[in-house]
């Protein structure tokens, strides 16, 4: 499929348009609110919440017999929220640590959810249920009214986030200080947690409970690589989430029987990997280049210093010295010939005889500068 016909389909093909819109909404909401989860070091909370949502979906279906997404989402949200409250109160009232409480609640709720799913599947109306699509998600099954539900929930969540911008920043950076200013930090914590629950449940139908936490964590950690400010980070995270959501959902609905959740997660993982390597300042590639350049420069400066200190012993800064002496002075560092050639290119040293080297006038000047500044200052 070429780009033009894809664009054409996006605009006019009902299924494709619904899928793309739905996944964009899910990416934006989970990307934006996931930033807070990542910054507050609660990345795994999203995992517990989304797994814990499964029994909620099953119970909502058992109670109402309805497959309308709003009903199922509500069940998911209530279950996710209850799980979070249980985790928080376990940590507060017992000696059990946060990660242990998370692991316990996650598996208990998820296991219970799987049992309920099996029970539902054995019922006579099982064929219509199709609740197992909540495990790995199925974008192609999205209906327009699902997307409208997602968009409404998502807008409420994002709007609340914008209204409480100051308070959430305090909550994430320095909650004690926020409390001394008079803001009710525990209440704000509950509000923010609820927003994250909303972000998760809006994505369950598309991504599934198993992998939804990736949409909370991955876009935010990718965005953090590119910026050092909260606003741009949240914006970028939302954009990355939308990009991954749309591309994953489109891929999975154009190739039949490709589960949406894993496809979206692969897309967002690609964004994370690229960001970790390529982002300026924090990216690994650039910092590798920077380190190399610094090391190279330091080696050249060291060579100039060596030549200068040798020359000083002869009361003539331009005195020539055999390369073997230089090799001895920079023992184990290697690359003497290479460094000399580079210095020659810069006009700082000159070859006197085949194996003898001396500083040029510029080289002497440069060496004096380096010694005056000290090696450490030159960085």
């Amino acid at each position, binding site marked *: 499929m070429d780009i033009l016909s894809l664009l054409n389909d996006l605009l006019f093909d009902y299924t494709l348009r619904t899928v793309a819109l739905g996944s964009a909404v899910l990416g934006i909401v989970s990307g934006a609110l996931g930033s807070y989860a990542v*910054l507050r*070091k609660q990345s795994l909370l999203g995992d517990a919440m989304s797994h814990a949502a499964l029994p909620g979906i099953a119970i909502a279906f058992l109670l109402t017999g309805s497959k309308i997404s709003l009903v199922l989402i509500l069940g998911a949200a209530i279950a996710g929220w209850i799980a979070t409250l249980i985790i928080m109160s376990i940590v507060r009232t017992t000696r059990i640590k946060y990660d242990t409480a998370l692991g316990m609640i996650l598996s208990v709720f998820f296991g219970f959810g799987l049992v309920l799913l099996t029970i539902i599947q054995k019922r006579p109306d099982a064929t219509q249920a199709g609740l197992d699509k909540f495990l790995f998600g199925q974008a192609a099954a999205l209906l327009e009214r699902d997307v409208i539900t997602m968009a409404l929930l998502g807008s409420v969540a994002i709007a609340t986030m914008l*209204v409480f*911008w*100051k*308070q959430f*920043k*305090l909550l*994430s*950076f*320095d909650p*004690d*200080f*926020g*409390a*001394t*200013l*008079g*803001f009710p930090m525990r209440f704000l914590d509950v509000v923010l947690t609820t927003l994250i629950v909303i972000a998760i449940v809006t994505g369950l139908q598309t991504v599934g409970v198993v992998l939804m936490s990736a949409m909370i964590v991955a876009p935010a950690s990718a965005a*953090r690589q590119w*910026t*050092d*400010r*909260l606003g741009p*980070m949240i914006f970028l995270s939302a954009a990355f989430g939308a990009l991954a959501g749309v591309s994953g959902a489109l891929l999975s609905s154009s190739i039949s029987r490709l589960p949406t959740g894993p496809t979206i997660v692969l897309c967002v993982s690609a964004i994370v990997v690229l960001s970790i390597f390529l982002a300026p300042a924090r990216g690994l590639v650039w910092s590798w280049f920077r380190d190399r350049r610094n090391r190279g420069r330091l080696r050249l400066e060291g060579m100039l210093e060596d030549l200068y200190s040798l020359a000083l012993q002869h009361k003539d800064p331009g005195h020539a010295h055999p390369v073997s002496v230089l090799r001895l002075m920079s023992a184990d560092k290697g690359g003497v010939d290479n460094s000399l050639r580079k210095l020659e290119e810069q006009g700082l040293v000159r070859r006197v005889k085949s194996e003898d080297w001396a500083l040029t006038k510029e080289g002497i000047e440069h060496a004096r500068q380096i010694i005056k500044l000290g090696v450490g200052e030159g960085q």
Partner: protein
Amino acid sequence: MKYAIEVEDLTVAYKEKPVLWDVDLNVPEGVLMSIVGPNGAGKTTLIKAMLGLVNTAAGRVSIYGKPYSKQRSLVGYVPQRGSVDWDFPTSVGDVVMMGRYGALGWLKRPGKREVELSLRALEKVGMAKYADRQISQLSGGQQQRVFLARALVQDAKIYLMDEPFQGVDATTERAIVTLLQELRAAGKTVVVVHHDLQTVPEYFDWTALLNVRLIASGPVDTVFTEENLRLTYGGRVSFIKHNGHNTDSDQEKRAEAGGI
């Protein structure tokens, strides 16, 4: 005498272990006071209790005669530098601006005035040119100054500071001391959790000695005695002479270590 802070019968316990036991402490207006005591003596907890940050088992704290919740705008707080994540995506100016959030209330956003105030506070701590710097690029001393600026921008009458001298370089320590003295000269009341006994007589005019119970409080001249220090640190500082700054620093360190 007019009291800025009055603490009555304050008891705080984590689980069953008491951290503060029946503390009565009055802080007169306009003093520059240190709270000293061994590790685990409850110094930080005392400050947090004054700010209503910990649940108290018993007792009362009043700020100028009223509970803290009614007097928030009068109090500025400098928490321990290590209590936050300095890799948080924000700038120096932005952190300082957080000091204005209380005055701004729930919905108002920081505007030009807040930017102006933050810059002025940063100037006072010698950090004006760092306003746009990402906070992870700061040294320990600079981080401490940013926290001080955030408290200054609150424009309070009482400042509560938790270990502002912890792990800062000599230059920053001098700068902070000067700032504290300026605050006192401006009639503010400053309470500082402090761990370096040696500098108490030089930096402060008022002090409280704390080890779960309040051992003593009052002017440094009369309260900072060998007897009281022994009571506070459990008899291991008998070699500390009165008139603190003559103390041999080596002995001082042993005294500190003994208290731990």
